[in-house]
């Protein structure tokens, strides 16, 4: 009957209960929305950097990091090319020869990094061909085709089929220059690539700087999924004496972004829960105040303090039990709506988002465990929020309480 009494007590002041329930539901909904939004944003940044830039794992010569350039090429490249057939978790590999240089158009010149690649392999790893906004993927120009970003094309004032000159140093530090023609213009999701990387065919660059077609200083591997990252890295390390690094080691900012995102989500959750906490305390204090006389009567006729405490806590729990699932459902439906209707379009902020490697359209991402966690957090908040009003209730002196008007 105490359960029934607690439930009925909630509905004594329908408006007040509705307000606090709405606050809990809106709070839960807002957390789900914000967490989904954050997950989507961070996920996009990570995914874009991973797919368009770093890949899951890269292999370099062990001294390459201290002196990047042509001097330290990877050892036994033919063996590294065979990893996808030897390690089942590897999806694709792209061997690159990376060299710093200059690109010059009739209008201007820019410092850039030249990525000499095998177009088919690179497409499999970074999906580069999918980002073309103009031109073709190395096929429309027979001799010395080049791909560059929209941003670089605008700076150089070139378009498809325009001629540019690339100047690089060979292994003996001799300046070598070659004429290339723009085959395609792309727009990558990686700001680093957009700002300063151009792609040429490996055979064209190696010819220009007089290197064999087995000369590479970077191998990039795309895995089938992220779960096997460490395991695959260890397997690779066992097979080669080159330097093997995961994208987290290459770009520690991934960890920082994810950590800051986690902290942000936690802060938002704590702020919302604090707001709910004070709302719950206020509501339950009002409820206790309104029932002072009745609680006094209950104490007088022999209701133990513990049962009164339990009753108040139960009422608070019930409010949350009703409201939290409503908020969870609203959050779930909101996410479902955006999933089914092309995501949340923030194209008007696309420029700013691209600076961070994010997408302009957000598809809500949330782990199922978040729903469980939120339910638990609301229950904990309700419990904490119930304690003070419940203590106030049990500390009422029966005689004084009965006399209250």
């Amino acid at each position: 009957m105490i359960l029934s009494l607690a439930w009925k007590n909630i509905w004594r002041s329908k408006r007040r209960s509705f307000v606090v329930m709405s606050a809990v539901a809106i709070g839960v909904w807002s957390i789900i929305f914000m967490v989904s939004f954050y997950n989507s944003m961070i996920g996009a940044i990570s995914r874009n950097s991973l797919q368009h830039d770093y890949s899951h794992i890269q292999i370099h010569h062990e001294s390459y990091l201290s002196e990047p350039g042509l001097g330290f090429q990877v050892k036994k490249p033919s063996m590294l090319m065979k990893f996808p057939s030897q390690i089942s978790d590897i999806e694709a590999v792209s061997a690159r020869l990376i060299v710093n240089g200059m690109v010059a158009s009739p209008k201007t010149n820019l410092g850039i990094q030249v990525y000499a690649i095998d177009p088919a392999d690179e497409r499999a790893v970074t999906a580069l061909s999918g980002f073309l906004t103009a031109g073709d993927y190395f096929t429309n120009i027979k001799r010395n085709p080049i791909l560059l970003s929209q941003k670089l094309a605008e700076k150089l004032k070139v378009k498809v089929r325009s001629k540019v000159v690339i100047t690089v140093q060979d292994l003996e530090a001799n300046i070598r220059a070659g004429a290339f023609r723009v085959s395609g213009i792309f727009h990558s999701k990686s700001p680093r690539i957009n700002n300063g990387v151009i792609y040429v065919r490996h055979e064209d660059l190696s010819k220009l700087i007089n290197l064999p077609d087995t000369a590479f200083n970077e191998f990039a591997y795309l895995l089938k999924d992220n779960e096997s990252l460490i395991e695959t890295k260890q397997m690779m390390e066992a097979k080669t004496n080159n330097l093997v690094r995961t994208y987290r080691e290459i770009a520690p900012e991934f960890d920082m972004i994810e950590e800051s995102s986690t902290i942000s989500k936690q802060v938002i959750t704590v702020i919302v829960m604090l707001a709910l906490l004070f709302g719950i305390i206020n509501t339950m204090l009002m409820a206790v105040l309104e029932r002072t006389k009745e609680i006094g009567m209950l104490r007088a006729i022999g209701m133990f303090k513990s049962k009164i405490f339990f009753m108040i806590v139960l009422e608070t729990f019930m409010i949350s039990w009703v409201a939290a699932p409503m908020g969870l459902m609203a959050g779930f439906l909101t996410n479902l709506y955006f999933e089914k209707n092309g995501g949340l379009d923030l194209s008007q902020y696309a420029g700013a988002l691209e600076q961070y490697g994010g997408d302009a359209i957000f598809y809500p991402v949330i782990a199922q465990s978040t729903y469980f966690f939120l339910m638990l957090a609301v229950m904990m908040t309700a419990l904490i929020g119930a304690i003070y009003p419940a203590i106030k209730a049990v500390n009422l002196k029966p005689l004084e309480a009965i006399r209250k008007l």
Partner: protein
Amino acid sequence: MKVIELKNLSKIYNPDTIPVRAINDVTLSVEEGEFTAIVGPSGCGKTTLLNMIGGLDISSEGSVDIGGVSINEMSESELTTFRLQHIGFVFQAYNLIPVLTAKENIEFIMVLQNRDAKTMQERSDDLLDRMGIKDQRDRRPSELSGGQQQRVAVARALASRPKFVLADEPTANLDSGSTEALLDTMAKLNKEEKITFIFSTHDQRVIDRAKRIIKLVDGEIVSDEPR
């Protein structure tokens, strides 16, 4: 058999500042089956005396024995248990739980006593019947008249099978008809089942029906007469 025994009972408010003696050296006993009214002008100490008998207030001096057990030295928790098991309370303002029906209000005290569902059902049906409010069983207090609410309150007080019932001005908020009906019911219960009732009142209709009248003036018993 003595149900209540008070010895040299006093209640002094503000003992450290301006002491006010609300009850002064009261000694009395109440036998099982009595129908007693404590009367006197407002502020004479009727309610204070009732509260001390009911273990809701603590005496400054003297002792309160209920059924041979002294309640003076009991802890708060022991007093709560004692009230639940041995004392029935009827309040002037009924003090029913507004969200529960008449039947649920009566059963609630038995829930606190951890009685089984069948016992509660039988007891509440019986009391509703004897109080003449059986057809009001599923109504909430707000749907009942003052007299009906007070009958529910009496039924609730009796539901726990107490040693006695303390009723503080039970008819103060009732009209003549309801007062008479309530008094009839309580007198019948007293006569047929030997239930002990102790009222504080200055309602002449209650005084006229009482079998013993204890008159208090300024916290002291000035007369104690059986009728």
